[in-house]
């Protein structure tokens, strides 16, 4: 494997990690506030569809992004309604949302575009362009560092950089602001928040809405950045991988970045090499496909350190007598 190939794989790692990262941080906000969300997949999917559909119709990727975020936040609010207002089972609500998105996207896509559940391919302003950072071209001749800068660091779309910025932002919000303090408290001990005179419901809805916003970004990037349009079930389990990354990261922002880059790398390798030949032993592509899931199970099995989730996660808050 030469340096250029390594760079290409790493470059695609960053791209593939971006939707995972948005979704993972989305889950982080929700679960830190005590609302478990296995509906990341569905929210990404619906945002991917509406982003692509609106971008295709208007030719504006920005309007697409807005539509994607709005649709994703709407599903978030359904999740909030079920799991916060009506104290329903958060897991079941998440499952329902995933199916709702899977069904609705194809249904509407067929109705609007009649192309068997996909949107038209996006062109021009309908997609995110790649940003060339200053001096990328000028420096590309510098050995090692030049190509590294020009190909790996420069040349991604706006959302990739936004995703990377979201990591420190999330950290800062959680650990340096009043909102973050309250958010973490409501995921650990909602009764403490309630008796302090703060609305548990309000905080959790805020968290769930942020989760929707970030899932919206994830889906939008998928359909209008990574690819040029929506196809049915295009999230293909990314929401679940993001969930796994969240567990791997033990609900912490910087670890989330690492976990998403790792899973992104796995996807990038699987994408580039079909069957990997290791001197007589062939690793089939199906194993590469399954590897993120297998790794997740290994992580969940706790062989890589114990992950302690927020204490009040999954439990609707009921005032005690």
């Amino acid at each position: 494997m030469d340096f250029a190939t390594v760079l290409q794989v790493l470059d695609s790692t960053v791209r593939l990690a971006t939707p995972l990262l948005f979704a993972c941080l989305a889950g982080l906000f929700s679960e830190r506030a005590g609302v478990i969300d296995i509906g990341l997949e569905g929210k990404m999917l619906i945002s991917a569809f509406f982003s692509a559909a609106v971008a295709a119709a208007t030719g504006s990727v920005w309007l697409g992004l807005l539509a994607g975020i709005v649709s994703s936040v709407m599903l978030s609010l359904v999740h909030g309604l079920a799991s916060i207002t009506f104290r329903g089972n958060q897991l079941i609500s998440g499952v329902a949302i995933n199916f709702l998105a899977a069904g609705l996207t194809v249904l509407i896509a067929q109705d609007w575009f009649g192309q068997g559940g996909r949107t038209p391919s996006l062109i021009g302003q309908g997609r995110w362009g790649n940003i060339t950072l200053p001096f990328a071209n000028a420096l590309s001749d510098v050995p090692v560092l030049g190509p590294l800068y020009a190909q790996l660091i420069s040349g991604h779309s706006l959302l990739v950089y936004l995703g990377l910025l979201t990591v420190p932002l999330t950290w800062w919000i959680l650990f340096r602001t009043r909102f973050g303090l309250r958010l973490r408290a409501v995921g650990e001990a909602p009764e403490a928040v309630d008796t302090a005179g703060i609305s548990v419901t309000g905080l959790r809805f805020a968290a769930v809405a942020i989760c929707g916003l970030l899932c919206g970004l994830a889906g939008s990037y998928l359909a209008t950045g990574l690819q040029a349009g929506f196809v049915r079930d295009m999230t293909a389990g990314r929401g679940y991988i993001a969930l796994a990354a969240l567990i791997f990261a033990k609900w912490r922002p910087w670890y989330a970045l690492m976990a998403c880059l790792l899973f992104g790398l796995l996807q990038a390798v699987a994408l580039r090499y079909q069957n990997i030949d290791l001197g007589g032993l062939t690793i089939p592509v199906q194993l590469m496909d399954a590897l993120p899931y297998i790794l997740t199970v290994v992580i969940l099995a706790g062989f890589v350190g114990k992950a302690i989730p927020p204490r009040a996660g999954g439990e609707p808050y009921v005032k005690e007598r």
Partner: protein
Amino acid sequence: MDKLPPWADAVLVPLISLLLAAALSALVILGIGENPVDAFTLMVEGALLRSAGWGYTLYYATNFIFTGLAVSVAFHARLFNIGGEGQAMIGGLGVALVCLYLPWPHWTLALVAASIAAAIFGAAWAFIPAYLQAKRGSHIVITTIMFNFIAAALLNYLLVNLMKPAGQQDPATAIFPAATHLPTFQDMFAAEANPLFRGAPGNVTFFLAIAACVFVWLLIWRTRLGYEIRALGHSESAARYAGISPVKTIVVAMLISGGLAGLMGVNTAMGEAERLVMNSTEGAGFIGIAVALMGRNHPVGVFLAAILFGFLYQGGAELALWTNIPRELIVVIQALVILFTGALDNMVRIPLARLFARGRRAR
């Protein structure tokens, strides 16, 4: 909090939830420019007014009974098994191995062997998530989801690389030998003069599914194991106090759950396709969640809910055939049913309970 009478809890709440889901679905159909009444009529005609329609409806229902029971048994132990899909896939693999590689003199013997294999394979696929949940506290919802993806990859590998006959394009096994053909409803009930169930895939496995309902009812409400499974589901601390091993009970409940999901493979692989294809489960594992919620985890409820979803599936196929409404409408309805009967249960229950309380006070 105000309480509902048991009959209202068992019948009225799911019924209202279903009506809400139906109303929203009708709005969706309106939204894509079709007429919901016409659509419903078409579904009823296609699924219920012809014997062939029933043959399909019951075929789908058979799948959903197995997966619905699978989810129910796990629910009784307060385990959420989302892995029915993968367990059914692997169950189908067991059926294929038995049918393809062993010689069978008669379908009855083949059915028994295939059922056992399907249950064992399905149970085996549930074992690792069960064990990890029981021993290491790994969240079974996440692990079973992961195992669905892993099952799909494994099956893909086996079908493409090992089990596909030479020269065949699509990833599927060879056709099973004729001796393993299961009697369809047509075989059983049609006569020259009275051609019933023509061409429909409904088959003898339906009766196996009914037997599974009886089995689950006895298991959950009449045996020591069922007593322990329910006890653990209600309170793990109490189960420990009583000397019920949570580890053992979780694993056993999940093995039974996985076995039931695996049995679905008999219906799809042996009863319908007569070979194992990729994607034979068609999401039935997930519909089991809706069926179990709707049926309140009781075999009778699961049976009725499975028939309902069988109708929706067959009706949905008719819609896709004759109108512009894609089959994904059924996924939407399924999502709404899960949402209303599972997650938004209290939205229906609380106002209803108030209504009942007011009624009582008025009297």
